[in-house]
């Protein structure tokens, strides 16, 4: 039949009844009249595109389904057509496609935007939160030190985190499907944690959440953040220590999506046996991320450490420096205060102002020129003179010692004189030459700070000497032999000495503006007559005067007397007494401007 049909179908002659009756043809027509009608019908079907399309449409879905299971050829073949169709549809009227996709795209776009916003807000919050904390200050310091912009530093520092545990939880039952942990320590019973996490999520959703889309995405417990990423069947919960970066969320999302894709069947049929989810372990382990940036990029960290060590050393050096500086500063200050104390105690120095200016000490005040030298005093206080600026204005101090000192400078007293000042009185003690005393009396009257010059305690050295000489001269009588007016040879030395002393006395007296009168008195003893005695006594006086007088022509006035025995030096009992009375004595008078009390 097949062959026949093929022939009938593909033959040169059309399968119709012809007028030219061929017996064989006729026979065939008679024999196959029913089949012929069928063939004609089939032919008609094949030729009619409408009927043909109808036929294909009946088997098309099945055909596509069968082919799709065999290979991807159908997809490949159809792809350009479908693309073309979509393109032309969009070109013709974009609204059609927009309307079609809207229910899908709307939530998808919303979700994407919400997720991006959440990430952004998260990092923004982080930044703001850290800005004014100690950490923030540290970052600012670091930014300033390294010259990097602050956001970069914050980014660098906030990225330190570790995902410690990841739970894959069956959404409906809260049962644990899989659990991976970065550390073995501190892992609580994971299946109970899983249950509690689910309970907490349910609680939050019941209490605050509205629809299914609004659910607990993350919460913080101390250092830990729990990030929850939910799929339709399972939930991924990551326990993160430290600051979870926003980039972590996409990873969790991808992971939960991949698990849903790969284990869709196991999730749908979950009856409490979690073994099937061992397959997802590697995926969860990928989520156990530790901040890699600083680990992998050792450079900056090492540099930071180095910088930190440098800082620490610098700080130590600084501290030592400060300590040393403080020590010296304190010592300097103590010395300076000591110096100021000394200045204050020093007579003739009055400090008006002192302090520190331009790294140097300064002191201003008044200073008596006779006072101690402030610069020299610096050395006593162990202060370098160049570190101090001193400004001193001269003045006269009224301290007694300064009054005395000034008097000394003017009066120039001899070493034997001591000058003191008390209550405006200048006291002179000791001994001084007559002339100095006279001058001091005159000059001291011009001292503004001296009311009176008191020299009652002062001995006139010249007058004392004169007096001593006088006494020595008067105490040496020159004796004569009885009834003789001749000098005894043995007295010549005595007379010479007498002459020398007298001459010295005369010189001194003249030196201080005085005149000397020497009364030469001759005597006789009580033997013999008084007339004779008187004459001889006068001769004796004249004789001595002659012996002494030549050297004192102008300076000394000699008065010669002969008194006989009327003024005996001693009452005559023995020959010795008589010998003493047969003598000449000198009496010296210093006169002319002689001071009171001079003898």
């Amino acid at each position: 039949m097949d062959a026949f049909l093929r022939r009938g179908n593909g033959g040169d002659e059309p399968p119709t009844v012809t007028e030219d009756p061929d017996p064989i043809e006729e026979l065939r027509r008679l024999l196959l009249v029913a089949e012929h009608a069928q063939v004609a019908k089939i032919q008609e079907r094949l030729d009619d595109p409408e009927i043909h399309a109808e036929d294909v449409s009946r088997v098309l879905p099945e055909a596509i389904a069968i082919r799709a299971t065999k290979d991807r050829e159908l997809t490949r073949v159809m792809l350009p057509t479908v693309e073309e169709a979509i393109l032309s549809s969009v070109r013709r009227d974009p609204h059609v496609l927009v309307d079609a996709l809207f229910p899908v795209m709307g939530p998808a776009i919303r979700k994407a935007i919400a997720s991006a916003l959440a990430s952004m807000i998260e990092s923004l919050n982080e930044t703001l939160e850290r800005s004014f904390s100690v950490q923030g200050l540290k970052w600012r310091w670091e930014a300033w030190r390294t010259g990097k912009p602050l956001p970069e530093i914050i980014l660098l520092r906030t990225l330190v985190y570790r995902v410690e545990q990841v739970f894959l939880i069956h959404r409906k039952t809260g049962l644990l499907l899989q659990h991976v942990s970065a550390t073995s320590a501190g892992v609580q019973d994971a299946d109970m944690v899983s249950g509690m996490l689910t309970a907490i999520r349910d609680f939050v959703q019941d209490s605050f959440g509205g629809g299914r889309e609004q659910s607990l995405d993350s919460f913080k417990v101390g250092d830990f953040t729990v990030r929850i990423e939910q799929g339709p069947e399972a939930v991924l919960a990551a326990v993160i220590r430290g600051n979870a970066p926003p980039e972590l969320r996409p990873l969790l999302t991808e992971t939960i999506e991949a698990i849903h894709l790969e284990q869709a069947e196991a999730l749908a049929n979950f009856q409490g046996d979690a073994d099937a989810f061992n397959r997802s372990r590697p995926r969860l382990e990928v989520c156990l991320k530790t901040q890699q940036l600083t680990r992998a990029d050792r450079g900056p960290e090492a540099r930071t450490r180095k910088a930190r060590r440098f800082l620490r050393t610098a700080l130590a050096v600084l501290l030592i420096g400060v300590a040393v500086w403080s020590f010296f500063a304190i010592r300097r200050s103590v010395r300076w205060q000591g110096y100021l104390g000394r200045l204050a105690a020093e007579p003739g120095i009055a400090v008006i102002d002192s302090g520190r200016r331009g790294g140097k000490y300064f002191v201003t005040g008044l200073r008596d020129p006779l006072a101690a030298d402030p610069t020299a005093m610096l050395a006593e206080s162990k202060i370098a003179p160049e570190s101090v600026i001193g400004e001193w204005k001269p003045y006269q101090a009224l301290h007694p010692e300064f009054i005395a000192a000034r008097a000394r400078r003017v009066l120039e007293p001899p070493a034997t004189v001591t000058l003191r000042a008390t209550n405006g009185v200048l006291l002179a003690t000791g001994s001084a030459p007559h002339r100095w005393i006279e001058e001091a009396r005159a000059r001291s009257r011009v001292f503004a700070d001296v009311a009176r010059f008191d020299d009652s305690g002062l001995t006139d050295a010249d007058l004392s000497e004169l007096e001593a000489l006088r006494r020595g001269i008067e105490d040496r009588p020159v004796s004569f032999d009885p009834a003789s007016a001749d000098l005894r040879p043995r007295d010549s030395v005595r007379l010479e000495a007498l002459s020398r002393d007298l001459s010295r006395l005369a010189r001194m007296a003249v030196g201080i503006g005085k005149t000397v009168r020497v009364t030469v008195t001759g005597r006789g003893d009580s033997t013999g007559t008084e007339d004779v005695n008187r004459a001889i006594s006068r001769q004796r006086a004249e004789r001595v005067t002659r012996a002494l007088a030549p050297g004192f022509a102008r300076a000394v006035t000699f008065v010669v007397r002969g008194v006989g025995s009327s003024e005996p030096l001693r009452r005559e009992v023995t020959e010795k007494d008589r010998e003493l009375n047969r003598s000449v004595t000198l009496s010296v008078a210093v006169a002319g401007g002689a001071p009171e009390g001079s003898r």
Partner: protein
Amino acid sequence: MIQKKVCMLGAFAVGKTSLVARFVRSLFSEKYHTTVGVKVDKKIVAVGEEQVNLLLWDLYGEDDFQKLRTSYLRGSSGYVLAVDGTRAETLEKAVILQSRAREMLGDVPFVLMLNKADLVDRWEVEDSAIDDLVGQGWSTFKTSAKTGAGVEEAFLALARRMAGST
């Protein structure tokens, strides 16, 4: 290992928490119980050859069932109805809770624990009422969280039935 979620249901102060505590060690603090309204404990029991990990959701007992968070029931493979044998009204509550749980979970295994069995002289629940429930196919156990009597047995029975139902 098979895991099963089990909810503890019952009126206020019937001793649900004590029953769980008697049965397992407690991991989470009581704080969860009052704030979140649930505390999860676990206990591994052997059912024949198999180990079954029971995750016991101890729900905060409320007198008004409306206040119970039904979302906590979701996904339970079984539940425990706890009754205070010395308070007859808690049995009525248990019956109401059972119907609610069945609405949510369907026909999953459950057991009724008539707790405080040690307080014999104050016992209120009529045996006839229990017989009634047993007649409806309920499995009931007299338990005492205080002495431990019947507790293990009741949980094991539930575990066995849940394992069988998979």
